[in-house]
């Protein structure tokens, strides 16, 4: 049976892995390649590297590290951040990334999703969505440029409309970052992810809020997501991969053992 995926996320800034709380106050966690290798060996099913500065400051980021990761690890990985054109994507995929993820550039130009799909195939086009629950309007709202708090801004899209739109445009997978939960380890936003699942027919990856093993159990069992992404619980060794996977297996979640 197809296994649910556990996906450590490594936020990259200036060639180092960093982690912030609620997308802010980034601290350096370590070098990219050794961390990537460590996670692959521990039993991660996939890795995501977010170059968090890239989209916000509109520069071409040095992606030489992509090739170094591809050399070393034997599990799939996705690169996000700063991919605005077919050419940007081509370079990263040629360096050995399996997928590319776009976020702000897809909001600026939804046609980019279709162009990437037609050139490289649906399987490598991931769309990341930063979604914020607005208590006042009781709406889930899509944000862009979340890598830089000075430029972070709300878009006119509601989250579920945008999820439908990116699928129409040819996305192969959706990563839903629930911003209210990010980095605070209170659990995934199950309510939001359940609603997202109802409108999402491509693989859906939960992001934001993992703090304990039961959060993973809940997000797979209740929200029926295909993968769960997490950063700080792995970087800070709050959760051990083998214990997490064994617990999920015991809970009858389909998981690739470590």
């Amino acid at each position, binding site marked *: 049976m197809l296994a649910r995926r556990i996906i450590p996320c490594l936020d990259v800034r200036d060639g180092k892995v960093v982690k912030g709380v609620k997308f802010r106050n980034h601290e350096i966690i370590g070098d990219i390649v050794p961390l990537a290798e460590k996670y692959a060996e521990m039993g991660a099913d996939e890795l995501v590297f977010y170059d968090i500065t890239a989209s916000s400051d509109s520069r071409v980021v040095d992606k030489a590290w992509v090739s170094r990761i591809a050399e070393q690890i*034997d599990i799939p990985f996705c690169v996000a951040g700063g991919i605005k054109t077919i050419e940007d994507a081509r370079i990263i995929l040629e360096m*050995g990334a399996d997928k590319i993820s776009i976020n702000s550039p897809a909001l600026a130009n939804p046609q980019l999703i279709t162009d990437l799909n037609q050139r490289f195939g649906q399987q490598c086009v991931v769309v990341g969505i930063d979604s914020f629950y607005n208590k006042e309007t009781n709406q889930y709202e899509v944000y862009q440029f979340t890598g830089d708090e000075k430029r972070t801004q709300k878009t006119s899209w509601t989250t579920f409309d945008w999820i439908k739109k990116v699928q129409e445009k040819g996305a192969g997978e959706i990563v839903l970052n629930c911003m209210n939960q990010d980095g605070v380890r209170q659990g995934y936003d199950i309510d939001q992810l359940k609603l997202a699942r109802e409108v*999402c027919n491509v693989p859906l990856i939960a992001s934001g809020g993992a703090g304990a093993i039961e959060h993973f159990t809940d997000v797979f069992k209740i929200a029926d997501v295909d993968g769960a992404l997490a950063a700080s619980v792995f970087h800070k060794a709050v959760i051990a991969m083998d214990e997490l996977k064994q617990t999920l297996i015991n809970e009858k979640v389909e998981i690739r053992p470590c």
Partner: protein
Amino acid sequence: MDVVIIDTSCANLSSLKFGVERLGYKVAVTDNAEQIKNADKVFLPGVGAAGAAMRIIKEKGIPEIVQGLQQPVLGICLGMQLMTEHSAEGNVDCLGLIPGTVKPIKAEGLRLPHMGWNTLTEIKDSPLFEGINQQDYFYFVHSLCVAPSEYTLATCDYGQTFSASIHHKNFYGVQFHPERSGKSGARVIQNFLEMKQ
């Protein structure tokens, strides 16, 4: 031993190259006919859409080269699909190396693409799957598949049962990505490289 990856101008060339190199083999990525013909082992990689991929490899004259090969050839993912006779993706004739056709996965109610780690449901006795069993996971990413037939070496289930691997004469294909399937994938690549002519 001369190992060659045919340069199909597709995106996963370097991950496959690195995957072979991690096992300690030297490997050349090339579209040179002589170099491909003289290799001991040949990989035919592919990702993306069948129609576009066939167009690209035709421009390079690759179909004639591959069709004439006698040594073991391993097609990966779309590379495997291109080894069959026809793909519904772009309604395109393929290389005709292994009987069969490529059709959309009948994934009633399941999400597509079939993306992630899955196990093999049946594994025939073959040097390619030496040491591999039904507990081993492989990384799949695809929306189309080849139905099981007498040419199937291994099957996988996702909505329907389909060929995870096919074989005819010196031509082998795997639907999953062995270069991205951890230790079990590395074993399949190693099996292929150690396979007798």
